[in-house]
């Protein structure tokens, strides 16, 4: 279907950016230039290249190493949240598309309600009760993803249910579960992958915001958001501290967004590229 068409520039750029970041996160599992949590007060607030590639923070920690270790945390939380919320939402969406009726209406109204709670707001609510941390941040982001995926998968699944071959399968006596597994899921998988990629960008952005407020992974574990929060204190003396983490977050979000757009252009031939 799409074979032979050269990948668009957005797909290539998105793939390149996300591949590099994923590689950095993986490398950081085994190696960083310095231990990311090691303090060296004597070398504190050194500008880039004066000590390490990106300088040091107020505790003399190596900024590049913290960024690398932060990739592990930030991308990890984002991936877990999208996987969790995406699976739950898809299950709901595909389920109600098969059942329809009252349950369908109730679940969709439930989605309207869930949409009214931005992840930061639910993270504060959950954080106050369960204590802030990586699990709370993941849960808060995942909860926001559930209605997103429920709507997308329901819409896509309803289209599949109206196709002739599904009608034929029903005529042949196949049950809703079998049809959902054999026909609906494979046919909507592409749209779900696109959605998941785009939501990954949003999840990275949200995780950064949560860590910025202290609602993410607890210190001393490095995260991009908290690096920015720490940088705020030394804004005037050491402005470079605010540049690298922010640019890294933006790059990660840009990468996932480009990848999602590129995949959508490719998977949906009716859409002209660049729309």
């Amino acid at each position, binding site marked *: 279907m799409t074979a032979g068409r050269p990948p668009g520039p957005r797909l290539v750029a998105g793939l390149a950016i996300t591949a590099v970041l994923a590689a950095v996160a993986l490398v950081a599992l085994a190696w960083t230039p310095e231990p990311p949590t090691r303090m060296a007060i004597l070398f504190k607030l050194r500008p880039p290249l004066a000590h390490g590639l990106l300088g040091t923070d107020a505790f003399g920690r190596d900024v590049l190493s913290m960024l690398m270790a932060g990739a592990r945390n930030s991308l990890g939380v984002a991936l877990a949240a999208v996987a969790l919320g995406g699976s739950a939402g898809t299950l709901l969406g595909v389920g109600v598309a098969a059942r329809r009726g009252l349950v369908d209406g109730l679940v969709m*109204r*439930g989605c*309207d*309600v869930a*949409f*009214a*709670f*931005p*992840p*930061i*707001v639910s993270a*504060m*609510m*959950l*954080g*106050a*009760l*369960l204590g802030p941390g990586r699990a709370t941040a993941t849960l808060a982001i995942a909860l926001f993803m559930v209605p997103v995926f429920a709507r997308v998968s329901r819409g896509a699944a309803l289209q599949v249910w109206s196709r002739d071959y599904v009608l034929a399968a029903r005529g042949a006596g196949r049950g809703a579960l079998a049809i959902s597994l054999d026909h609906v899921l494979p046919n909507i998988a592409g749209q779900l992958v696109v959605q998941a990629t785009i939501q990954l*960008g949003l999840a990275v*952005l*949200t995780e*950064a*915001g949560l860590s*910025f*407020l*202290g609602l993410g992974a607890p210190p001393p574990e490095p995260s991009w958001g908290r690096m*920015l929060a720490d*940088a*705020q204190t030394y*804004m*005037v003396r050491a*402005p470079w501290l*605010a540049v690298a*983490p*922010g640019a890294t*977050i*933006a*790059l990660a*979000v*840009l990468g996932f*967004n*480009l990848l999602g*757009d590129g995949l959508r252009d490719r998977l949906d031939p009716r859409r002209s590229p*660049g*729309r």
Partner: protein
Amino acid sequence: MLALLSRRLLGLAATLLAVAALVFAVMSVLPGDPAAIMLGTSARPDTLAALHRQMGLDAPVPVRFGRWLGGALTGDFGVSTTYGVPVAALIAERLAVTLPLAFLAIALSVAAALPLGVLAAARRGQAVDVLVTALAQLGVALPNFWLGLLLVLTVAVWLGWLPAGGFPGWAAGPGPALAALVLPALALALPQAGILTRVTRTAVLDVLEEDFVRTARAKGLSRRAALWRHAVPNALVPVVTVLGLQFSFLIAGSVLVESVFGLPGLGRLAYQAFAQRDLVVLQDVVLVFAALVIVVNFLVDLAYLALDPRLRARGTA
């Protein structure tokens, strides 16, 4: 039309009730005793019991929900444990910062996004389009709190053009108050403008490709007239939709940006309530946030009726 409106209002009331029930359920059903959380681990049992009575936690859950909802409907949100003042007054005071901030951010993002999106669509494939699309893509990816930090550093600290943070209050006159809101609003608006530019561009392109526009063009309508008479007005429907959906992100953004600029808004109040374990305030502010999102989306639904006569005629939208 009236029947449609009353049906919508009934739906709005039901959704708001569900939101209130959810907030209450999360705060009271989840493990964790609010009074114990507020007092900390070293609280004496009699202090804990007293706070339980004061917060009404000794009553059964449905009674507590009824009291809270009844209070919220009559503007009585209870008393803040940290500030010792009525929460309603606290919320009203903070809304006077957050709502103007949100509206300023929306106004700025629309003012940038509409012209840019229409321009990009009108010059599809040309250099201008590529540039606008790339900028929009970049804008969407920028964290608003990072933009806030950069704006503080460049515009406030280095150039000294605008205040770096804080809020003088509306009593100080609209000038200084607005000046304090410009940078935070810009930080909130830029990523929003990126999204809106893309939506506007796509929406205008979609309308330009519709049969009625092609027919009009074939009958001699100029490209310019087709753009302004047909494409732009029709493209407003998806643009307004996205604007409504983005309101929830604007609310989330206000928590972060108010924190960067030290603005005494509702987002900052929520964060302080969280940090100080003031669950009474937190529960009320979360309800106000969610209700704002729902009401804004309700208004967006109504705006469709004004913007799209087809929906009005059908009456089922």
